[in-house]
């Protein structure tokens, strides 16, 4: 059954048929949210929220466009919201800790993610947008134009993200190879 047919049936009130869309896209969305957030549980939460938001807004879906892209755009926006909340919370916690103990060094969110083993040592070197852009390209075969629709930015900006990501990864892979040969 095609996506558009499933959507039409969902709009007529059949909630259960939405399972087909969830089953079809959950792995792609989940790995994308994980590539942005870097945390399994959070990625699962955000993916669920994205599917629910998608279902509740199905009447706004433009049937001339790709459902997958629309779903990815919603999921990506939810990831950014989550990150924003996290950042403000971590800033608040840092401030509170510093006020209590002015001499303690507090680790920033970026630094924490960089040092974590969530994505492995290579992907941690990329920033959030570079990582997501290259992920969408490599894992889902998305073009720069499609990624720009998800990011809601210019195609040229996405090309820059992809270029930077590829350059960094190439360098890292080269280093890794160099290290492993010795």
């Amino acid at each position, binding site marked *: 059954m095609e996506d558009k047919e499933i959507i039409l049936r969902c709009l007529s009130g059949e909630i259960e048929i*939405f399972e087909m869309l969830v089953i079809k896209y959950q792995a792609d969305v989940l790995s994308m949210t994980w590539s942005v957030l870097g945390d399994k549980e959070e990625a699962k939460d955000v993916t669920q929220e994205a*599917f629910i938001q998608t279902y509740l807004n199905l009447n706004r879906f433009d049937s001339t466009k790709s459902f997958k892209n629309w779903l990815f755009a919603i999921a990506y926006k939810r990831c950014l919201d989550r990150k924003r909340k996290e950042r403000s919370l971590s800033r608040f916690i840092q401030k509170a800790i510093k006020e209590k103990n002015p001499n303690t060094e507090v680790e920033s969110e970026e630094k924490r993610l960089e040092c974590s083993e969530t994505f492995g040592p290579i992907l941690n070197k990329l920033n959030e947008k570079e990582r997501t852009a290259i992920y969408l390209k*490599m894992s889902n075969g998305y073009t720069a134009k499609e990624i720009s629709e998800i990011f809601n930015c210019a195609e040229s900006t996405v090309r820059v993200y992809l270029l930077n990501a590829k350059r960094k990864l*190439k360098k890292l*892979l080269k280093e890794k190879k160099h290290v492993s040969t010795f």
Partner: protein
Amino acid sequence: MCQLFKFLYGLIPIRKFQSYLIKKHFSSCSFCKREIEVDASLKEIFAIPDWVKGENLWPQIRQKLYSSEEKVVETKGKFASISHKRWQWAVAGLALAAAIGINLLIQQSIKKGSYAEDASLSGEKARIVITRAEINGKEARPYIYQTPTASFVWFAKSEE
């Protein structure tokens, strides 16, 4: 070398020739070979992780969808009752305004009516009829001049 390959690839759009060209070029060009290797290792890095493949989010999503549907219905109900109440207030306000307006109009028309009545009455009152007039025992001729607000009456001796 890559430029020449690109040029030839675009120049002759025959599938067999293009695939031959690709094979030939990629077997000899070290730059493109490296690019392919990089792409292959990137695909490995970005492959969907195993833990993701084993996940099924539908039960949780289903549960949340049903509860959110209920919430939507509830909020719609609330909104409907709120809007219903608002409508009631709006209708009541309009009815009150209409009643005041009608009352004012009636009062105005009553006032106008009374003025007219007064005017007609005053007109009747002001209508002067002189049946007989005499000056020094002789019959006199009456002259009456009336305006809406005043009446002038005078008599003249008859010339007989």
